[in-house]
């Protein structure tokens, strides 16, 4: 029998059903693996006690023949999802010790379906970052190493802990959130799959907000089919979120193997931007060939406003975050630093509670919304956003899907790309346009760089058509046959 931690979710569910092993066995194997991989710093809080209880409950359901969609599957929960009675920090000092008196809808859905929570996964503070180096609880280390040196690499961000845990085979799947690429980019950096569904597909209720008009929850896993299973559980209408869309969630697994024959896949020329690693451009061409070989028709499309998406994002996301993060004032929850008076207390609390990147974004957001700059920045960005959205609507008249690179580079070392904030922001240049338009997008691992690091490609779909993305993702998966393992998981497999 295969090592329990290297199974896919689909394989594990089959094994559990056949009673090849128990949910407790599966959970214990992952707990053991997690303990051996603590140097990766994937978790802010391990919740093994909860996991063991949940696994035992799963076994009881298997015994009664009442197993649910994800019964007994150990996962990592991004610490941006509020979990009732369990510390939720958003990787910020300001929320240290905060125990929500409520459960996020997405985590609640997964628990309803029998998922087992191993821990609250590390992330960039308030999901602001692309390398998981802004967490108040330390950097997350990518389980992959490059050939050229032994430097610790970043897992991408903001859902870095989630992605690293799945890649390191210490969790079978994980939740993430994606505001400008926070699922897709770390999936690419860690050699796994991750999907940001259509805005409105998953409820935002109970997810610590970063930028409300962009935030979307989605899963990470090691196959397209596993992602589909996880999303099946996470997604669905929620009356507690006014932006949740009441659109039926199809049975993704039932259509995922249909292939791409007859589908039109658009290749947007604007994604061929200067400075992109030539290896990535080559990988992109390979991806196009794979889909063509599988029967898809390739069409050239144009998304002319792509080059302004990053700028638009860095107005809108900070503007919303500056307001969303105003509630962290040390009055009702979280950390407080006592001052001489109320304003002093506010200012000291927020100075000590927020990290540098969060402060930068709050300040930029405050600036672009303030009197005198509002039209020049905020309203301008909202207008450009409309144009970006129209680009997609136009493109989807010609094709069913778009194929692009996920990120302009492979994972980099901690300390690289950090000269200034703007360089770091360029990491999300391929993922942000779809975020601005609310379109679903998925990263699938396709190959390794010359330096031995995983590279992913991004599939973008029409609104609420994640099913078609999954079909194409599985087609690429089959063609790419990406079997490489990070060094850490190789060692365990050996």
């Amino acid at each position, binding site marked *: 029998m295969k090592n329990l931690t290297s199974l896919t979710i689909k394989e594990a569910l089959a094994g559990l059903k056949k009673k090849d092993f128990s949910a407790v066995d599966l959970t214990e194997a992952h707990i053991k693996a997690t303990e051996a991989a603590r140097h990766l710093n994937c978790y802010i809080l391990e919740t093994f006690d909860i996991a063991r209880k949940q696994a035992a409950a799963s076994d009881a359901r298997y015994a009664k023949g009442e197993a649910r969609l994800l019964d007994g599957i150990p996962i990592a929960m991004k610490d941006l999802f509020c979990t009732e009675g369990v510390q939720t920090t958003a990787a910020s000092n300001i929320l240290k*010790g905060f*125990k929500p008196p409520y459960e996020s809808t997405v985590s609640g859905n997964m628990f309803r379906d029998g998922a087992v929570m191993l821990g609250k996964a590390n992330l960039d503070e308030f999901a602001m970052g692309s390398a998981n180096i802004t967490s108040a609880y330390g950097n997350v280390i990518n389980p992959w190493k490059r050939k050229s040196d032994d430097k610790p690499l970043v897992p991408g961000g903001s859902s870095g802990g989630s992605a690293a845990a799945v890649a390191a085979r210490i969790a079978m799947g994980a939740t993430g959130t994606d505001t400008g690429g926070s699922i897709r980019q770390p999936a690419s950096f860690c050699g796994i799959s991750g999907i940001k569904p259509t805005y409105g597909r998953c409820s935002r209720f109970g997810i610590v907000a970063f930028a409300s*008009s962009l935030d979307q929850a989605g899963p990470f896993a090691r196959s397209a089919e596993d992602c589909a299973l996880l999303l099946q559980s996470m997604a669905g209408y929620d009356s507690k979120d006014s932006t949740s869309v009441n659109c039926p969630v199809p049975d993704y697994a039932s259509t995922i193997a249909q292939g791409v024959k007859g589908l039109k896949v658009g290749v947007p020329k604007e994604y061929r931007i200067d400075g992109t690693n030539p290896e990535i451009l080559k990988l992109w061409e390979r991806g196009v060939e794979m889909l063509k070989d599988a029967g898809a028709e390739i069409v050239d499309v144009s998304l002319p406003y792509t080059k302004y998406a990053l*700028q*638009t994002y860095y107005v809108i996301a900070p503007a919303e975050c500056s307001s969303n993060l105003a509630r962290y004032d040390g009055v*009702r929850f979280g950390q407080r630093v006592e001052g001489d008076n109320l304003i002093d207390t*506010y200012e000291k609390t927020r*100075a000590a509670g927020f990290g540098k990147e969060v402060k930068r974004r709050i300040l930029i957001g405050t600036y672009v919304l303030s009197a005198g700059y509002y039209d020049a920045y905020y309203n301008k960005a909202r207008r450009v956003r409309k144009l970006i959205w129209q680009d997609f609507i136009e493109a989807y008249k010609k094709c069913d899907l778009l194929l692009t690179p996920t990120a302009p580079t492979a994972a980099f070392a901690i300390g690289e790309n950090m000269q200034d904030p703007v360089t770091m*922001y360029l990491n999300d240049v391929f993922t942000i346009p779809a975020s601005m338009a609310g379109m679903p997008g998925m990263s699938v691992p396709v190959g390794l760089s010359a330096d031995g690091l995983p590279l992913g490609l991004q599939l973008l779909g029409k609104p609420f058509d994640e099913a078609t993305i999954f079909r194409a993702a599985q087609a690429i998966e089959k063609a790419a046959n990406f079997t490489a393992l990070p060094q850490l998981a190789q060692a365990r497999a050996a």
Partner: protein
Amino acid sequence: MSIDKNTVKKVARLARIRISDDEVDVLSGELSKILAMIGQLNEVKTDGVEPMTSVIEMQMPEREDKVTDGGIPEKILANAPEQTAGFFVVPKVVE
């Protein structure tokens, strides 16, 4: 377009974040770089384009007027840094 030190201080005050003089210098540079980047939006012609807030095009959902929440003061107060007799407590506010 750049953000001078006074503007940084003003914005930090609006955002209720205390920043030291050293931080003001650094932030002024960083924020100016970000601003220079987003300033590229001025190249885009947006005449007649409606500003977009949400990509969702549906009707806003409404709920029935029913009491379905509340009545949990102990839970509401459970995470409070300071509380007394069911109240949150803050440094004195002068009106």
